[in-house]
């Protein structure tokens, strides 16, 4: 009997104009969304490849250990095509610095070159699917009871020897049967598009994720079907029913998500990133006075013969005198541990900032649990590895890697070695200034005295010391460092199994809501007055 009622509903729906329009809507919206997301993903991949190549090149080209600042470039998640989550709001690369720990991702955000385009939101599959199937769930169920009551066929139906529960279950199954093809079509369409795009490769774990989202979307749809039924049972006329359900739809899908985030911003206050940076600079002031103290005791003679400087105390010297090299070495030996200590100190400030951000995110998430569509999209972002939590896991790994790297440096006493700042072998260091002048001027000036004379004669010109190239003094002549023993970071991907415990809460909430709703539907239908 259940089957017969379901079949009747199914065939009635299948022939209706409603079904045709719903199908067209899906056929229009889903491909457009997938194509937009795919385009986005492709540009992310392009940025990733460029960044990765650059990072590898930079690391391989390092001639000294102070140039070893690995940049971890995280590949875009293929599943981000389905759900972007927050992955597009942070950069995809992390530079490992000794002087500062990683807070959040850096580099180009979004994979888009034009920052102005950020004001155009781009929706993803999960959102569009949530909008569509909730809408369809409501539209196909709002007149299931009130419609038949208005026609007078409900009385007729119940005059047959069937139980009410059979009718209800039959009707629900019928709606499900008519919506399932649309839902399945949405997935098939998007997977087909992705299948024919060359840059997208899903792993087995990714497929598992898609499957889980697929199952979850059925529950999500069922929730809205039940909601539509409940409204239909409670409302007198079917049109009042649909309008009320549509208000609920508007509220759940478009109003509440915004309210939840907006409210969390009011409830949990965070500071500006610039303020954190100001605080970090203040913290560094102390460190810089210590640096001055160290340099006061050291005397840098002829500091820069041929040298490169850069951020995070990168320094590369060649061709300097032995005593300069020694001073430099002693400076690094004393100063680098101080910088490491200050990185830990600064991390206290950074962590307070990060904790606040996390607290705000958590608040927003909990408030948004009042909307089933938000639960669904959170679930999607967790499964796709694009949620705030999964992003944080990556940054945490980067911080751990920094620790490993620091340990490697400390254990091998690299800070105290010449290799930290010069590619030149210790045995080839020059001992005197005269020697240096002699080589640089092709022997025209034998010593410093002659150089000073030459300078005076030529109106302060120092051209003479550029006469001959001092081979040992040219950084480009040195081969890159052998970094094969360096610890390597290889935890770029998030495993799907790690996200399963995360979605436990979302699943429980959505299932509980669904069961409560189902119980309410059942009760309302038993009490339903068919007259």
């Amino acid at each position, binding site marked *: 009997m259940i089957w017969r009622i379901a079949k009747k509903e199914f065939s009635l729906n299948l022939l209706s*104009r*409603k079904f045709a329009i*719903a199908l067209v*809507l899906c056929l*229009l*919206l889903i491909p457009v*969304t997938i*194509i*937009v997301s795919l385009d986005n993903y492709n*540009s992310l991949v392009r940025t990733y490849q*460029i960044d990765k190549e650059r990072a590898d090149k930079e690391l391989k080209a390092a001639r000294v250990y102070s140039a070893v600042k690995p940049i971890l470039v995280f590949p875009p998640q293929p599943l981000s095509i389905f759900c972007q*989550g*927050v992955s597009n*709001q*942070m950069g995809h690369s992390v530079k490992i610095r000794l002087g500062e720990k990683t807070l*959040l991702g850096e580099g*180009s955000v979004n994979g888009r*070159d*034009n920052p*102005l*385009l*950020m*004001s*155009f*939101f*781009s*929706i993803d599959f999960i959102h569009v699917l949530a*909008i569509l199937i909730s809408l369809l769930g409501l*539209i196909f169920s709002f007149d299931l009871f009130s419609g038949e009551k208005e026609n007078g066929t409900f009385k007729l139906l119940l005059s047959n020897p069937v139980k009410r529960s059979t009718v209800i279950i039959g009707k629900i199954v019928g709606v499900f049967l008519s919506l399932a093809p649309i839902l399945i079509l949405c997935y098939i369409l998007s997977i087909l598009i992705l299948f024919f795009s060359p840059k997208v490769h899903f792993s087995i774990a990714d497929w598992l994720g898609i499957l889980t989202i697929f199952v979850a979307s059925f529950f999500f749809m069922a929730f809205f079907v039940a909601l539509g039924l409940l409204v239909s049972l409670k409302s007198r006329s079917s*049109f009042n029913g649909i*309008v009320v359900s*549509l*208000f609920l739809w*508007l509220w759940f899908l478009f*109003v509440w998500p*915004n*309210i939840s*985030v*907006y*409210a969390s*911003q009011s409830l949990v*206050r*965070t*500071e*500006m*990133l*610039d*303020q954190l940076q*100001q605080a970090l600079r203040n913290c560094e002031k102390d460190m810089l006075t210590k640096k001055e103290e160290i340099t006061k005791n050291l005397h840098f003679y002829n500091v820069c013969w041929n040298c490169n400087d850069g951020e995070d105390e990168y320094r590369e010297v060649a061709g300097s005198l032995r005593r300069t090299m020694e001073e430099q070495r002693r400076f690094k030996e004393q100063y680098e541990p101080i910088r490491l200590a200050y990185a830990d100190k600064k991390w206290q400030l950074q962590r307070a900032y990060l904790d606040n*951000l*996390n607290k*705000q*995110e958590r608040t927003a998430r909990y408030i948004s649990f009042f909307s089933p569509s938000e639960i669904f999209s959170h679930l999607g972002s967790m499964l796709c590895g694009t949620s*705030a939590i999964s992003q*944080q896991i990556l940054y945490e790994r980067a911080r751990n890697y920094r620790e490993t790297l620091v340990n490697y440096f400390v254990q091998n006493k690299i800070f105290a070695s010449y290799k930290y700042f010069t590619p030149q072998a210790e045995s080839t260091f020059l001992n005197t200034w005269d020697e240096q002048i002699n080589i640089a001027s092709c022997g025209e000036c034998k010593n410093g005295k002659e150089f000073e004379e030459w300078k005076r004669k030529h*109106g302060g*010109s*120092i*051209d003479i010391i*550029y006469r001959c190239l001092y081979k040992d003094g040219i950084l480009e002549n040195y081969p890159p460092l052998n970094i094969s023993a360096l610890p390597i970071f290889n935890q770029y991907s998030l495993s799907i199994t790690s996200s399963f415990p995360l979605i436990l809460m979302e699943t429980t909430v959505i299932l509980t809501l669904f069961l409560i709703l189902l119980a309410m539907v059942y009760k309302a239908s038993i009490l339903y007055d068919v007259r």
Partner: protein
Amino acid sequence: MKTEKIKPSVFKDLFIKETHLNLMNLRFQVAFIIIITMFVVGTFFNIKETIDKRDTYNKYYSQWLEDMKQQAGSNSTSLAVLYKNFIQGPRNNSFISDCKERFMPDLIVYNAYNVYGFDVKSSSNNPLLNSFDEINWSFILITVISLLSLLLTFDSISGEREAHTLALCFSNPVSRVQVLLAKWTSVLTVLMATVMLGIIISLLILVLKGQLVLNNNIVGSVALFFSFALLFTSLMSIIGLLCSSFSSNSNVSLLYAISLWLIFSIVVPNTAVLWADKMYPVKYSNVVDEEITRKHKEIIDSYPNGKFFSDRSEPFHPYHKIRATMKMDLMRNDKMIIDAYIQDLRNQFEKSRAITNISPVSLFGYSMEAITGGGYLRFQHNWEGLHTYQDQFLKWFKAYDAKDPKSPHWHNPWDNDVTTTTKPVKFEEVPIYTETLLSGSERFTKIAFYAGLLMIYIFIFFYICFIKFVKSDVR
């Protein structure tokens, strides 16, 4: 003769009947509650948010001024060459619309020699949060009223057709235009009265909480907002009537209406990026970077050896001049490439935005920028303002430098060097950029443009709806 005399009163009767029906309708009552709640809740959140933001920004800005003061007190060259960030602060009329400012460039980098670029800093944004819209007046219009005006109108023709009351109505001496107009104006009246009430409540809360001083600017913006809201609601409700006249089944006209709403508020705004990339491609940033690096190498190679020589004890050393000219050359070269690139980016943005104007929802969102003086218009204003300011700043610095006999006056845009004056300077004498409000004339053309476009849309849709309605079979 007689019928003509009756006409106005028929319209009045129809209008009263429709309005009465709308007011008594459950959907309007629910809508009324939603709208008013959102106005109230949104205003309270907005007040809290604005206070927080202003407070945070003021703290940041005073620290920034402090840093500048310190720079000025130690060395005027370092003050001039230091890269400075201009960050846009919160606006005082953000309760009307935030104009998606959190996703707009709000950071401009400059020093005395150049304005280097801009970025979407969104420094007060939490990157861990999902992107969202703030609950303000324009959000209520864009999301809630747009759907409501469709929901109130989708069955006003098809529903009457189903109930056969339309045929009855036409049997009276009344023209079809009047029926259509009566339906349209009554929905408008009901909705706009609600919006008006919401606006008044919101303003009252703001004034009572001491967050708002009603000056000419604010009153003007509010009045403009209301007129645009009226235009927007008229457009959306005429679209609803159009959907209604296209089908004899209100079930189907509902789906038409919702499909259109989805296209206008989801599909069109969200596919802009795709169009931007495909129709107006720009150079990739890494290509531009490579071009700059290549040019840098060329320029550096063209200068003689010793160009990087530096000796702080000897300002007049001839090598310093070489370095200063070289750096100036590099800066000019960068400026040429980057300014052209930025122009490309802005063109891409403006053109792809022009495409999304086909959606009334996007169009209304953009018109908010002209009304409140925020969003992209504000960025544009600041971008140009900073260029003017940078000229002044450089002139001031050059004049100050010229007074110092110990300085060789070799201007170097990047290095904190001894080739220009190293004397400290009184901070009060240094020109500081402050943001000015957009002038009326800057906004007026935009306002006229958006209003004109909305009116054209209204006219087109009304015309189609009218033709359809007049020709329709009422049976």
